[in-house]
């Protein structure tokens, strides 16, 4: 099965308007835009039987925020990469297709401020403290400095 897997993946990616690149042996990167993301992932799950989502990584890439979905299947690894603009950080949730993605999406929401439409727990916090001020930028952005966050949180405590 694994011999024909790369070919299937490339066909599938082309269908979704994306391109699959072989990074290393048995490791693929598919870059796809937001509109086609859900279609591509549901095809990956239903047609290629790639069920295991290892995790989702959020990256601060300057103008954009990169979101990488890491899938593993037997010996193959598939990374699906998509970009959302920093000015309007909203992405499409894949919880409907993969229910196990719910906490990973919450984590990226906490850390980078990306809003996943369709995730039922988007109104809750997962990792950040309850006292986190709403106007403070998400901590993993390159512009957030730990010393400033510390100062601000200290101020919040003192005010109470």
């Amino acid at each position: 099965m694994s011999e024909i897997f790369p070919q299937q993946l490339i066909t599938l990616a082309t269908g979704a308007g994306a391109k699959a690149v072989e990074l290393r042996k048995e490791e693929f990167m598919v870059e796809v835009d937001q509109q086609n993301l859900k279609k591509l992932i549901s095809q990956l799950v239903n047609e290629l039987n790639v069920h295991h989502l290892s995790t989702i990584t959020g990256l601060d890439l300057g103008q954009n925020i990169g979101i990488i979905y890491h899938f593993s299947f037997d010996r193959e690894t598939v990374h699906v990469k998509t970009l959302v603009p920093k000015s309007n950080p909203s992405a499409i949730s894949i919880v409907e297709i993969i229910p196990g993605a719910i906490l990973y999406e919450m984590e990226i929401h906490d850390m980078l401020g990306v809003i996943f439409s369709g995730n039922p727990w988007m109104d809750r916090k997962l990792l950040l403290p309850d006292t986190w001020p709403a106007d403070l930028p998400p901590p993993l952005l390159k512009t957030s400095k730990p010393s400033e966050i510390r100062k601000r949180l200290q101020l919040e405590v003192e005010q109470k």
Partner: protein
Amino acid sequence: MTETSTTPARREESAGLMQYSVENLVPFGPIHPALKEPEYFKLVLEGEKIAQVIPRIGYVHRGLEKAAEMRPWVQNMYMFERTCGICSFVHSLCYGQAVEELTIYQVPRRAKYIRVIIAELERIHSHLLWVGLMGHWAGFETLFMWVWRDREIILDLVEEISGNRVHKSMNAICGVRRDMPENMESRIVEKMKFIEGRARYYREIIDTEQTMLERTEKIGRITADTAEKLCAVGPMARYVGLRHDVRLNDPYAAYDEIPFDIVTRKEGDVHALLRLRLDELVVSANIVSYAVQHLPEGPVRVKIPPIIPAGEHASHCEAPRGEIYYFVRSTGGRTPDRVKSRQPTMANLPTALEILKGQTIADVPMVLTAIDPCFGCMDRMAFLDTETNRQWTWSGEELRKYGINYYRKRKK
């Protein structure tokens, strides 16, 4: 047991509970002097059964990913080792492998074998610790004492090899920091035989001892389909029959040169998890013996420059609790641009919440311990009965006693 009066609820907490038409919630936070590790599960009850579980994690989140962006590559390795106090080595191994792929250097073969030895010793000590905890929560203290005595043997071996009991600090980028001490081979093999014998003995106990059977059989059930959908990893995937083990699926270090097979079970209950982990002890002990006897000669480390070339790489390893995942991005500097780390408990949490639904309160400690959560025990829990609207909180010890008494009464 503390009854709580009506107090204004916190906004976040009430959001998910609105559907249960409850206006007031338990005011006790998870941070409390009595807690060992702060985690919080809000259980919504219907009589004796659990209807809904709402998790709240992050109380011990220390921002390691942000901190990693300000530290040199080598320093990060020892920082990530401090993520966990039980499976510490595998974190540095996984981070190291991701970084090594970005460089042009190769890890020496001897170092790969030493990595396997330490990783498997760590798995044995983590599984033993877990079996002991299961005994504790079931009210079978003798098992707890026995198992933790055997665990000392492993910790002594680890100390002799690495110099430390818990945070081994053995890994370096492209190698290991210490060579194996001389003349240890026969001693390690002998001790692995002892561990194997003990594992078989404990296996016999859990299959025959009524205390354990009653508390574990047909409890915490889940189907393979659900586990796969919720992306369960490690023992939580293997106990329903999924062949999910990174050591076999995507071999790293020297696992492709060592003959072994993984253990899977089909029953999918807490008892299957106990059997599975005890069988894995035997497999791990055999891997250690094989690796020690076939240890190749040669150097253990390659020195590398402090600057790592630009690029991205992801790496995964099989920790005692399941797959761990590291993603590293370099822009060619002295510090990483981004390090992402995902621990197995995070991946298993959705599965655990699914398993808890429909269980009785008496089974909560067993089921929550069964997933081997990295936050140890869930010392304080809030209860909410939707039939009577009564709310109360229990400490872990009270919950444990409730579970033991519940089964004692049922027996009579």
